[in-house]
């Protein structure tokens, strides 16, 4: 009897804890997903349905906002621009950052540690402080409103990010792998490309994904450095939200917002396998 009495509350408290965890998890997920859900919902409403009180969950959907703003806000070109800039800066940063991270992790360079910390510290400067000087430099070089300008600007914060992630990944790999490859007939470059790169692929891809998402949603530099030709989606959203003449057009905002989010979600779902594997690999290897 006594054993039952003592073990029963413990078991039920375990079950209770489990329930609390599940409920909390669901609540947090809903909390994060609701604005997204509301955004998608609103984007399909007629203008008259948007501000009804109480809010309508059931209404006649329309894609008129999408059709209109695809034309008016030049969404198609901005989408293409965003893809070019996100892919370009992501790829550039992964190439440069990976090599820099490898050098910092493996090659004995005098002052390498200081150098690495300095690069990281550069991320401590608020982007707003860099935006104006960057604009002046870009104008001086005749580079305003060009894809390459944004790609380079984004690389300034993506490269340190990639470098530090990949550096710790490389540090977790046993040094003997490269040494063995070098004895087996590789140069250091050969060892890097034939042995280290294939092993690092999952970590590399997850870092690439995070970098591209960061570039995808960047607003400040895009706002300052582009005008029309190379302008990206976040700039379009800011433009709609900050329309002082007509006021914020919520239908348009939610429609363009949905367009921004959907490619990222599709992309994340496609590479999900790599993402999870990459994170786990980085954590447990070595």
């Amino acid at each position, binding site marked *: 009897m006594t054993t039952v009495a003592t073990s029963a509350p413990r078991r039920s408290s375990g079950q209770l804890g489990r329930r609390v965890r599940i409920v909390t998890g669901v609540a947090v997920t809903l909390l994060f997903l609701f604005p997204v859900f509301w955004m998608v919902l609103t984007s399909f409403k007629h203008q008259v349905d948007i501000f009804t009180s109480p809010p309508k969950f059931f209404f006649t959907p329309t894609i008129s906002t999408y059709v209109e703003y695809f034309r008016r806000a030049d969404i198609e070109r901005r989408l293409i621009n965003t893809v070019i800039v996100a892919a370009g800066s992501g790829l550039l940063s992964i190439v440069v950052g990976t090599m820099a991270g490898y050098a910092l992790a493996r090659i004995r360079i005098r002052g390498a540690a200081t150098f690495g910390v300095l690069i990281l510290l550069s991320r401590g400067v608020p982007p707003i402080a860099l935006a104006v000087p960057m604009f002046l430099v870009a104008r001086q070089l005749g580079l305003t409103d060009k894809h390459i300008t944004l790609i380079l600007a984004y690389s300034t914060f993506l490269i340190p990010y990639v470098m530090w992630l990949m550096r710790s990944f490389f540090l977790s790999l046993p040094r003997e792998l490269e*040494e*063995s*490859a070098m004895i*087996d*007939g*590789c*140069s250091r470059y*050969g060892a890097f490309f034939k042995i280290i790169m*294939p*092993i690092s692929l999952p970590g590399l891809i997850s870092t690439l994904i995070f970098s591209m998402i960061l570039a995808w949603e960047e607003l400040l530099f895009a706002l300052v450095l582009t005008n029309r030709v190379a302008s990206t989606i976040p700039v379009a959203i800011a433009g709609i939200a900050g329309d002082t003449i007509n006021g914020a057009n919520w239908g348009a905002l939610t429609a363009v917002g949905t367009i921004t989010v959907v490619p990222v979600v599709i992309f994340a779902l496609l590479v999900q396998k790599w993402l999870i594997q990459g994170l786990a690999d980085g954590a447990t290897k070595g």
Partner: protein
Amino acid sequence: MGTVDIRNIRKSYGNVEVLHGVSLHIRDGEFVALVGPSGCGKSTLLRMIAGLEDITAGDIVISDRVVNHVAPKDRNIAMVFQNYALYPHMNVRDNMGFALRQRRMPKPEIESRVDNAARILGLERLLDRKPRALSGGQRQRVAMGRAIVREPNVFLFDEPLSNLDAKLRVQMRSEIKELHQRLKTTTVYVTHDQIEAMTLADRVVVMNGGVIEQQGSPLELYDHPASRFVAAFIGSPPMNFIEGTVVNGTHVRLEDGTTIHVPVTNLGGQARVTIGVRPEHFELSNAGWPATVSVVEPTGSETQITARMSGQIVRILIRGRTFVRPGEVIHLTVPPDLIHIFDDSGTPSIHAITRGIKQHA
């Protein structure tokens, strides 16, 4: 043909010198073990032979070619690492063939060499597995296979067995020895385990603090340790050291005042001496050095006794069984030719150096 000639090698990291001028000649086909406590420089020396560490001063010559500035890949050496360093994304076959592919050897030749090595090591059925699907012992074998297919001038082993459990270690030890007898490739083997060094090597090089303390065949080191360090390092369980003061030439007074007779012709003029006796060289008798038994550990084939002699702990190894009990006072004798005498500086006295080796019953 694989000789290794190490000429007055020095290695410094910044201002810290870790190798203080090491010279060693390794003959073709010889199996040399570098052994010593951690930090003695043995691994650094091996990595310098491999070309993984720069040489601060001196020359390394492999097969009559100075290789000081030759890249590791051009030294025609193969190395087995402590953690095996198998390429995790390649299966066993590709791991073993990697070096040959790097040399652009024709495919059929690579295949026949890999198959041959796999047969020698019993890896035939594992060739398509990835390293992560192998046990520790199998991984170790693949690492050796990767070295074998190269048919190099020199094999370098860096503590290859220390990640294995005790039983597997003994098994792999004899496999390595068998392999060497079969291939007769010059081998340099680094280990901190003196048993491994003694059982495997033609010649054991004992290193300590960045210098070679002594080198010789395993039994030479066992019989004639050139310093107290080597005496303590070689042999298991380790040699007993009993410290005392010489009185009238053939007696030594221990710390508590007990005087023991040391049956050697000359203890030297040293006031303070250290008497070294291996545990297996003690004999129990009715008269001799008195000691009080504290622990008796029978293993069946032999019995290890721990006893106290004037406050100093001595270990005694008796072949077979014995009936001594803890607390009992026993008397120990040692055949005169098996007593080592070290002077204050830890170097053997004249007696120990000139002592002839006699068969121990």
